[in-house]
Each structure stands twice: as C-alpha cells, then as structure tokens.
C-alpha cells in the first residue's frame, strides 16, 4: 500500500491533516503536510526576504546611522553629531529651495501627465480605424531609456543646431539658450511630458475594464456623453488614477533627470545643473559626490524618505471615499489586453 493512497483516503491531498491522525508511511517523516508546506513557503520566499533585509533595510539603516555623524566618506574618524545634520537640513536655504523647486515641478507634471494620458486613452479607446497603430506609436516614446530621451532633448534644444531655435528663427524670433537658466526647466517639463504614453496605457487598461453596459444604460436614461464620462467612467477609473498619482509623486520627488540634461551628466557633475533644475535629489548628489558630506547627505535622504512616506499616507487618507474599488475583477481573469487594436 503506497503512501499516496493513504493520504487520499484520509483527507485528500492538499488538505491540512493533523499528523497524529494520519498513519505514517514507512518512508514518510512524521511531519504533517501542513508543516512541510509551511517550510516550503519559507524556502520559496526566503531569498526575497533576505534580499530585502540585506539590500534595502540594511542600507537604509546604514544611512540613518550616517545621518547622525559627520562622515565624509574618506577618513575613518566619523564623529557622532546628534541631530546637527537634521538641524542643518531645516535651515539650509539651498535645501529648502531645492525642495520647493522639486515640489513645484511635481505639482505641474504629475497632474499634467495624468490628465493628458487619460485624454489620449479615451481617444484611442474610440472605435476608430488604426487605433492599434495609434496606441503603439503614442506609447513608443515611453519605451525610450532615460538617457536616450535626455540626449534627444538636448539635441532638439541645442542653442545652435537644435530644432527649437530653428523654428523660432523661422518665425523671426531670436534663439534662446534653452539648457541654462531660466529655460532649462521647460526642457525638463517637455521631456517629462514626452513619456505620457505610460499613463495612457495604464488609463486605457482601466477604461477597458469599465463595463460597457453601464455607460449604455446611462445614455438610454438621457445622460450626455460628458455626464456619463464624469459620473460613471471617471469614478470607475479612480483606482487607476490614484495609482498614477502615488507612483507619479514618488517618482517625481526623487527624480534625477535634471542631471541627464545637464552639461556634465555624471554624479559628480552636479555643479553643471542649472539652478532652475537644481532639484532635491541633485542637491543630495552634490553633498555626496561633490562635497563628500556623507553624513549631511544621508540626513537629506532620510528627510526625503520621510516626506514621501507622509505624502503617500496623506494621499491614502484624503482619497478614502473618493476611490472606488467595487468593480475590480481579478487581474488575470480579465481579457488579454493588448494595444494591438482588439475590440
């Protein structure tokens, strides 16, 4: 009699069987199926947990420790300085200015990209010809790696050979030195908006999950297209928009894109970033890699980390009641979503 049959008779495989009740076969260890499955769980998820502890938690803790010292990354005699670094963060005008600039940039680009992405998603969700092609091509810029996009925009906005000044010249307007103050910020915003395809695809996925019958019923009841969009589609899209707000803000607050369109795009080249693009993360790079102030820079990192946590928490709180999760089918049970134009 095999062990397999034994298990089959008692409770069925997969079910949790107390080991005392199950007759132990000669080749089986006296551990229950449940215990073995539990061990397996730890074996399967262990590498990730270990990686998380070693590669994320430990570095963050290390930075926290550094932030209470005056470490400079070179000499070994770092001294404990208490809260001095944090005090300096709050009183350093360069820090506060960079934080303000980053905040303004976030407040401009996050709503803009989400709104534009949603608009494009609505347009390419219409029953028009070649919409698959439109989806693919509109998404294409979002696939371009950051360095590729940054170099492309540096070429477009080059003072002498760029297309932007070429167009101004053709219109009889004097050329602009785009990549320095105060215009560099507009180049950065344009580059950010170029990636709008990402938001479009996420919103499109959301739109395709809105049950068609709901909008049809509303139209039958005399709702205008605008009403049916704002009263039905938009609320159902709220989780998707919410997701984009959160990830958009987190990404934007820690962006280092200004570095890539600067004259010298290396971690030590932060001094070549024009002031209008001197964002918080650029300031952090400057402290680490140009000034060697590891302690102060680590404090800056932790302050940003705290800001991101607080902002995320506040958005979660504030959006309660505004985000609907009711019509949320299981992700993998949804129809395969492609941008290939399937209807």
């Amino acid at each position, binding site marked *: 009699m095999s062990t397999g049959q034994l*298990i089959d008779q008692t409770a069925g495989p*997969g079910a949790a069987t107390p080991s005392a009740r199950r007759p132990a076969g000669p080749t089986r260890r006296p551990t229950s199926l449940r215990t073995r499955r539990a061990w397996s769980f730890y074996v399967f998820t262990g*590498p990730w947990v270990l990686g998380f502890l070693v590669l994320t938690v430990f570095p963050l803790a290390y930075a926290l420790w550094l932030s209470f010292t005056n470490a400079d990354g070179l000499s070994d005699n770092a001294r404990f300085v208490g809260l001095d670094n944090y005090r300096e963060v709050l009183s350093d005008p360069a820090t506060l200015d960079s934080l303000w600039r980053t905040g303004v940039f976030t407040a401009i680009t996050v709503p803009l990209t989400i709104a534009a992405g949603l608009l494009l998603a609505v347009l390419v969700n219409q029953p028009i010809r070649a919409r698959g092609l439109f989806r693919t091509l509109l998404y294409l810029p979002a*696939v371009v790696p*950051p*360095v590729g996009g*940054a170099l492309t925009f540096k070429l477009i906005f080059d003072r002498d050979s760029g297309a932007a000044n070429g167009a101004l010249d053709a219109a009889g307007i004097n050329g602009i030195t785009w990549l320095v103050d105060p215009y560099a910020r507009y180049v950065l915003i344009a580059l950010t908006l170029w990636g709008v395809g990402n938001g479009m695809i996420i919103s499109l996925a959301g739109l395709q999950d809105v049950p068609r019958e709901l909008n049809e019923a509303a139209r039958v009841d005399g709702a205008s297209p605008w009403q049916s969009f704002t009263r039905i589609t938009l609320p159902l899209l709220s989780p998707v928009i919410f997701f984009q707000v959160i990830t958009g803000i987190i990404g934007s607050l820690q962006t280092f894109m200004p570095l890539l369109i600067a004259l010298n795009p290396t971690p030590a080249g932060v001094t070549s970033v024009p002031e209008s693009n001197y964002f918080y993360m650029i300031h952090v790079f400057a402290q680490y890699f140009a000034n060697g102030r590891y302690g102060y820079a680590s404090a800056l990192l932790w302050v940003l980390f705290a800001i*991101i946590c607080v902002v995320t928490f506040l958005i979660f709180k504030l959006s309660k009641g505004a985000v609907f999760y009711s019509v949320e089918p299981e*992700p993998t049970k949804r129809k395969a979503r492609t941008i290939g134009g399937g209807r």
Partner: protein
Amino acid sequence: MSVFSRRTVVYMILVAVLVLMLSPFGWLAITALKDASELRALPIHWWPHEPTLGNFEQALTLFDYLGYARNSLTIATLYAVLVTLASAWAGYGFARLEAPGKKAVFGVLLSTMMLPGVITLIPTYLMFAKLHLVNTYMPWVLWGLSGAPYLIFLFRQFFTNMPKELEEAAIVDGCGQVRIFWRIFLPQSWPVMATSFILSFSWTWGDYIAPALLLDDARTTLAVKLAIGYTNEHGAQLSNLVAAGAVMYVVPVLVLFLIMQRGFISGISTSGLK
C-alpha cells in the same frame, strides 16, 4: 452637429499629437545624418542636404562602443535571467503555499513596490563600496537573486489562477514542492517569464544611475558612456555623433518593444491595477 463628425475630430487630435510625439525621433535621425559642417549651418537645415552615414562609423569608434554595449548586454542578461527565476520562485511561494506570517510578508512585499528606489540606491552603493563589490557585476547578481517585488507579484497572480489539481496529482505522486514548481508550474508560466525577462532586461539596459554609481569608466554600461562620451578635445559636445550613438542605443529597445508589445503592455498595465 458641426461640420466635422466626431470621428474626424478624434483623428485630427490624434494625428497632431502623434506628429508632436514622434518628432523627437525624427530630429534625432536627421541630426545623426548631418556632417559636422552641416550641423553648423545657419539657418539650420531641416533636412540634411548631403546625408552621411559616417557619423555612425565615428560613433562606434570614438570610444569602444561595442565594448560598452557588451557590458550593458552582459549586465542586463545576467540580471534579467536571475530576477525572472528568483521572482517566479518567490511568486510560487506566495501563490501556492501557506504558512504563519504569510500575510505579513506579502504586505511587506506590496509596500516595497512603493519604496523610493533612488533613495535606497545611494546607501546601497556605500554598502557595496565597503564590501569591495564596486566595479564588479555582483550587485546585479545579488539584486537578481532576491527577485523584484513587482515581478514576484506578476508571477504570484499567474500561479494563483492555476488549477489546484495540477499540484494535487503531483503530491500524490510524491513530488516535493521544489519539483512541483520546477516541473509543472514554471514551464506553464512562460508568458510571464517572457514578460518578466523583457521588462527587467530593458530596465537594466536603460538604467543610468546604478551603473553610474557602481562601475568605473572602463566597466560601465553604454547608457552611462553615451551620456558623456561624445566630446571633442575642448569638451564641446559632438552633436551629430551623440545622435548617431543614441540612435544605435535606442533602436534595439524600440524594436524589442514592437516585436514583444503584448508582453510589455500586459506587464505595464497590470502594474496599475492590483
């Protein structure tokens, strides 16, 4: 109703946006085809009068372009293979196994998806520097082996929906969980594996900040070298070479995307909906 039908208006907007969105690609290509004298022409030439492919040749030789491309390829492949297998491994655990504390661990996994990655990178760099792992590919091996939360989540979603009978039959036959994963579940998940491979490969190929911090000039990736490599002896940017180099760097990614759209898109849109 107006003179134009609604459909026409939609087309007009889409075409206008499309032209705007694709024009940077156009300018990149046009700049890549201009020789140095045409680049300086005033007023600028909207179309190269004497298009040349010489820039591509120079872009390949001004520094060891193919060598840096090989560095990128090595790191990206290494990471993509490891992270795909490791994420499938962890995803299986979250999808099919039960244990005390599972809920908590899964909660941590989900919240790490929101962790600000750039913030943790600099301290990680400091740690790797202390461990003398800077200038090696070990950081990518370690990152790969621990899996990526987002990919783990993708695999978990896929494995959760597989029929229970698959596993039960195997248990009856005396298979351990590792064999069940390796023989039954992993082979079934090839669409997710393909998606995971492509996504992680293109992240790494496109990543700038990690190689910029962790690797020195000789070992770094194409993304980093491209950003700083094309200057003349006075430090001035050689725009036409930058363009040619960027074209060769970006086109493979675009081609990969166009071939594998389905995987790309399903991966990206799932991330928006938990």
